[in-house]
């Protein structure tokens, strides 16, 4: 697989990061201790390089209608300056990726797919655009994405923006964005994230990424900001009950099994969209195994691929799991037969031959105090 490096690679090396391959990208796994990074985001702030994510611009007179056809949601209905979580499915209803779409205007949208899927998504969008008056432009290679996440994120951003623009930061609602100048860089500032905390994601051209990164790190120092790698990003999103493509979502899973039924606009969209017939059939057929949260009663964690048991029989499979740093007990996401998926159901996870007790609990595992 091609090794890709973000514009911030040298910054990570300077900080002594250990690296891992993720979706064909050399990304920081952690800088010091992944637990310390995790706690920093919950209690102060964390700085993430997410430049491996894709950025695909969709522009033109039919941009909204095109996205309604290409994705499962009703993207044309997003208000300007707002973002929406959606899925791109294939004709069989399998999930190609989950993504976030930002609406700048009637004729201008930004679609952000996951790193490893970005080329596939860009190609699928380009192919689906054949009968629409739109332009699909994959700007992933030229665009950097930096996230500032945690309760101190807003204070740090305010320190880096001119007072005249403070209202653009403080007034920003969850899943909304503004174009703001941060530390002298024109960025798209979105109040989005993948950690379960308040926070921001900043898009900008590669050229300014290192300078912005250093400015944020410096401004955030007094607030306790630390650079965070993919290890803490994974434990944070798991506590927040957020799915990860490749673990919880795949071509083999339907959005309904993943609990993402509300994302599929079967009733609010009148026209056809890719996957519609298959998704209608999947909804009609119902779900056999659904995604649930599991809480462990012991200290050992379930991991992806471990069988879930009821009275010794396999009734499901763990897709993500680890000890929750914030909660202090093991948590896992798992697909479980619907008859055993009710809240409070006592189940076991087969931990390398030993059945350990778990319980079905509500998601998310962790919810921040607002």
């Amino acid at each position, binding site marked *: 697989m091609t090794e890709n490096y973000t514009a911030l690679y040298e910054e990570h090396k300077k900080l002594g990061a*250990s690296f891992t391959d993720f979706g064909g990208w050399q990304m920081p796994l*952690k800088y010091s*201790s*992944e*637990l310390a990074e995790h706690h920093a985001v919950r209690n102060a702030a964390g700085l993430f390089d997410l430049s491996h994510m894709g950025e695909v611009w969709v522009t033109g007179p039919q941009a909204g209608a095109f996205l309604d056809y290409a994705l499962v949601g009703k993207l044309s209905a997003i208000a300007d300056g707002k973002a929406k979580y959606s899925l791109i499915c294939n004709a069989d209803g399998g999930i190609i990726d989950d993504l976030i779409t930002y609406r700048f205007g009637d004729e201008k949208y930004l679609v952000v797919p996951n790193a490893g899927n970005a080329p596939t998504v860009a190609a699928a969008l380009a192919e689906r655009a054949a009968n629409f008056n739109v332009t699909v432009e994959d700007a992933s290679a030229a665009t950097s994405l930096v996230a500032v996440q945690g309760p101190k994120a807003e204070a740090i951003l305010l320190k880096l923006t001119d007072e005249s623009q403070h209202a653009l930061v403080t007034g920003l609602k969850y899943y909304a964005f503004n174009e703001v100048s941060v530390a002298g860089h024109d960025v798209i500032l979105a109040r989005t994230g993948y950690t379960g905390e308040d926070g921001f994601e900043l898009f900008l051209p590669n050229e300014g990424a290192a300078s912005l990164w250093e400015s944020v790190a410096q401004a955030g120092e007094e607030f306790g900001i630390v650079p965070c790698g993919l*290890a803490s990003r*994974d*434990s944070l999103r798991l506590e927040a009950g957020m799915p990860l493509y490749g673990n919880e979502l795949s071509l083999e899973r339907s959005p309904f099994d993943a609990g993402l039924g509300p994302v599929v606009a079967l009733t609010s969209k009148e026209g056809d969209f890719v996957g519609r017939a298959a998704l209608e059939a999947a909804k009609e057929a119902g779900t056999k195994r659904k995604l649930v949260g599991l809480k462990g009663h012991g*200290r*050992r*964690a379930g*991991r992806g691929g471990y069988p879930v048991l009821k009275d010794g029989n396999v009734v499901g499979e763990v897709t993500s799991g*680890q*000890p929750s*740093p914030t909660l202090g007990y093991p948590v896992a996401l798992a697909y479980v037969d619907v008859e055993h998926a009710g809240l409070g159901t006592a189940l076991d996870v087969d931990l*390398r031959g030993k059945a350990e007790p778990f319980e079905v609990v509500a998601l998310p595992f962790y919810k921040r105090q607002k």
Partner: protein
Amino acid sequence: MAKVAAELKYSAEHEWIAADGSGPSVVGVSAVAAEALGDIVYVDLPEVGSTVTAGETCGEIESTKSVSDLYSPVTGEVTEVNDDVVSDPAVINNDPYGAGWLFKVTVTEEGPLLSAQEYAEANGGEL
């Protein structure tokens, strides 16, 4: 770069053993392994009185990201386990060659062991 303690011997599976010839030997995991594992959150150690066998698994080390088997570098009887690392596994990350020791064993036979120099060269550690 992770430190390799010069006075110890090592197994290829990243356990160290301190054998001074008098009394039971002390076994732990190297800083190289502790660093690669990430923050350790759970350890499962052999029971006192049980027999461990060189090259065979005798427990488990679980970090936030992964689970690894613990291999015994020697054959012998376990005389003591470090309860402190069971209750606070982070000690292994913080002091793998000291307070983070795992168990003591009366050695009847050694497995294939590497010198600190050999282990450091094979695993990119720093003497």
